[in-house]
């Protein structure tokens, strides 16, 4: 395993109380694998990623438990200056909003070159050459001419390519992409996603793709982890989850997408609202919104069950793609619909 997050807990201390943003997350990603982390706002998907990258604002954030193993080392035990060497060189992050993540007063060439001057001790001239090479690699037309341009002179899609170039600069083993295409238009979204997937294959990187868009996930991911209220509620190879979800929340999400055969009918909607992280309901956090909830769901927190019924519910060829888990007492009933 390239990266393994074990039982991670993160909380935020605020004036109004303690918000439990991440409550025991486990996930892992291998070289060359794409893990999609799916969740709505407030599900803890970005906070987990920030903890992995080591860019969580502390305070108010606090990691209260767990391990983050990267190539066997526990990142949480490293000193800040060691951590800094990992960040950027061995793992890199692509943010959602390229315009606000790039420095508006530095040319893109300087920002890309900085990766090489800081981490590799290159001269500015060599770094500039590297920057042009990177821009070519992410297919920015006329890279040599545009290397002196500033972020605002690029379109949204081009800016996101620069973000990708920056993340790839030192050829990290792991890339975390936090909603990389959410701010882009559909036709540009497809270009950027394709580029990312291609570069990932080329460099055999692990990719964690954080998103709320079920469509994007289906297009690129190998595995999916669905998050709700700071926990992973279901984790499975991508084909399995779409074929037969094993958690009522995943099922609700899939059913609330408009389908052709439902035209004119009412859409399925998950009732209620995502929970307030300061007052997560006891038992299963999803129970107040769940159509299948029983008494046990209101009192006991469901552990992660292994979903396995001798290949019955598995898509062909997915058996080796890893185990499938669900944090629902009634995953069998959920699979059967």
């Amino acid at each position: 395993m390239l990266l393994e997050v074990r039982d991670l807990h993160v909380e935020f201390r605020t004036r109004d109380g303690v918000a439990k943003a991440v409550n025991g997350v486990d996930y892992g990603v291998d070289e060359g694998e794409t893990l999609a982390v799916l969740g709505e706002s407030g599900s803890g998907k970005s906070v987990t990623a920030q903890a992995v990258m080591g860019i969580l604002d502390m305070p108010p954030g606090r990691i209260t438990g767990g391990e983050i193993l990267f190539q066997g080392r526990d990142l949480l035990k490293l000193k800040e200056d060691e951590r800094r060497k990992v960040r950027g060189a061995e793992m890199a992050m692509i943010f959602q909003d390229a315009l606000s993540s790039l420095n508006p007063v530095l040319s893109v060439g300087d920002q890309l070159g900085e990766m090489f001057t800081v981490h590799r001790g290159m001269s500015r001239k060599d770094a500039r050459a590297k920057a042009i090479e990177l821009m070519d690699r992410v297919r920015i037309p006329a890279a040599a001419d545009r290397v002196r341009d500033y972020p605002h002179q690029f379109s949204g899609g081009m800016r996101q390519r620069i973000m990708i170039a920056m993340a790839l600069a030192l050829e990290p083993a792991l890339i975390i992409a936090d909603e990389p295409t959410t701010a882009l238009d559909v036709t540009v979204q497809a270009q950027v996603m394709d580029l990312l997937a291609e570069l990932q294959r080329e460099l055999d990187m692990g990719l964690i793709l954080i998103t709320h868009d079920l469509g994007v996930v289906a297009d690129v991911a190998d595995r999916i982890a669905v998050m709700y209220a700071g926990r992973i509620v279901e984790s499975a190879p991508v084909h399995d989850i779409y074929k037969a979800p094993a958690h009522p929340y995943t099922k609700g999400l899939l059913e609330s997408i408009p389908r052709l055969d439902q035209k004119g009918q009412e859409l399925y909607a998950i009732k209620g609202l995502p929970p307030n992280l300061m007052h997560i309901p006891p038992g299963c956090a999803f129970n107040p919104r769940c159509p299948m909830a029983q008494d046990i769901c209101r009192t006991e927190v469901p552990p992660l069950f292994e979903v396995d019924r001798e290949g019955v519910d598995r898509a062909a060829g997915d058996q080796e793609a890893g185990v499938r888990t669900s944090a629902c007492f009634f995953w069998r009933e959920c699979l059967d619909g």
Partner: protein
Amino acid sequence: MAEAILEVSGLVKHYPLTRGILFKKQIGAVRAVDGVDFELAAGETLGIVGESGCGKSTVARMLVNLEKPTDGTIKYKGEDITKLSGRALKAVRRNIQMVFQDPYTSLNPRMTVGDIIGEPYEIHPEVAPKGDRRRRVQDLLDVVGLNPEYINRYPHQFSGGQRQRIGIARGLALRPEIIVADEPVSALDVSVQAQVINLMERLQDEFDLSYVFIAHDLSIVRHISDRVGVMYLGRIVETGRDAEIYDHPTHPYTQALLSAVPVPDPEARERRERIILAGDVPSPANIPSGCRFRTRCWKAQERCAREVPPLAVPEEFRFVEGPAAHDSACHFAEEKRVVPPEEPPEQAT
């Protein structure tokens, strides 16, 4: 088609680009909307899709008279509302209301929900006598699925989905005939989007509303719309009934747009044809000659740079009956199914 309640023709909005401070000189224009025609029938939903910068929101703002068109007419029941002012304009505005995209910035944080939803009555006092307003606001809260007791709360006490319901209640207050909804669900979480869409469909039946529904999410537009118009750089490039557009698109831009939409079904990713457009949308200040899509089109020929393709049924389909015979602004229109027919879901739930 039922009688048209709204007729838009030749709608244009140009924003001038000027140079100089004292002696301003116009050096060009951002052609945000550049000749849009459509009709809206009573009780129908017209969906308008397009990418950012295509002018769809500017169209919405002109429909509710927040923006004056540079040219063209908007006829509400036969009367051109772009020329109206004063009392006559006020009367028309009552019947065309808007729901905004961002429920976080479109509600005044210092007003209570009761004041926000009741404010339209201050402007149009003839709709509800003063003593009756509080009860009406409570009814509206109930209609959109909020607890009527929340009337004294402030917007920050509500979630995004609930705020959008407040925005919808405000839009309904004057009992309009037309609601223009500009990306009403795009700021909401997936699980909440469906709730709001269902609400809008229920209200349409209940109050006999006509919707102009503007969005960039193609699957939601298809779900709610009777007819769909696809916009690109200030113009409608293809329009027709929802099945005509989605299953039998003839304009290359529509085909590319449909093929780019991520399909939430991993099985479909192998079956589907993908068209990935090169480049970005050109700037509306500098629109290509002829067909405005030609710079990104794989079919573009010399003729496309010369002649502007009209929005009409293409010649190839003029004498054939069938779903491909709908308006499409392309010289080389051909039918192409990009999204494979959906197989019925295996589990019946």
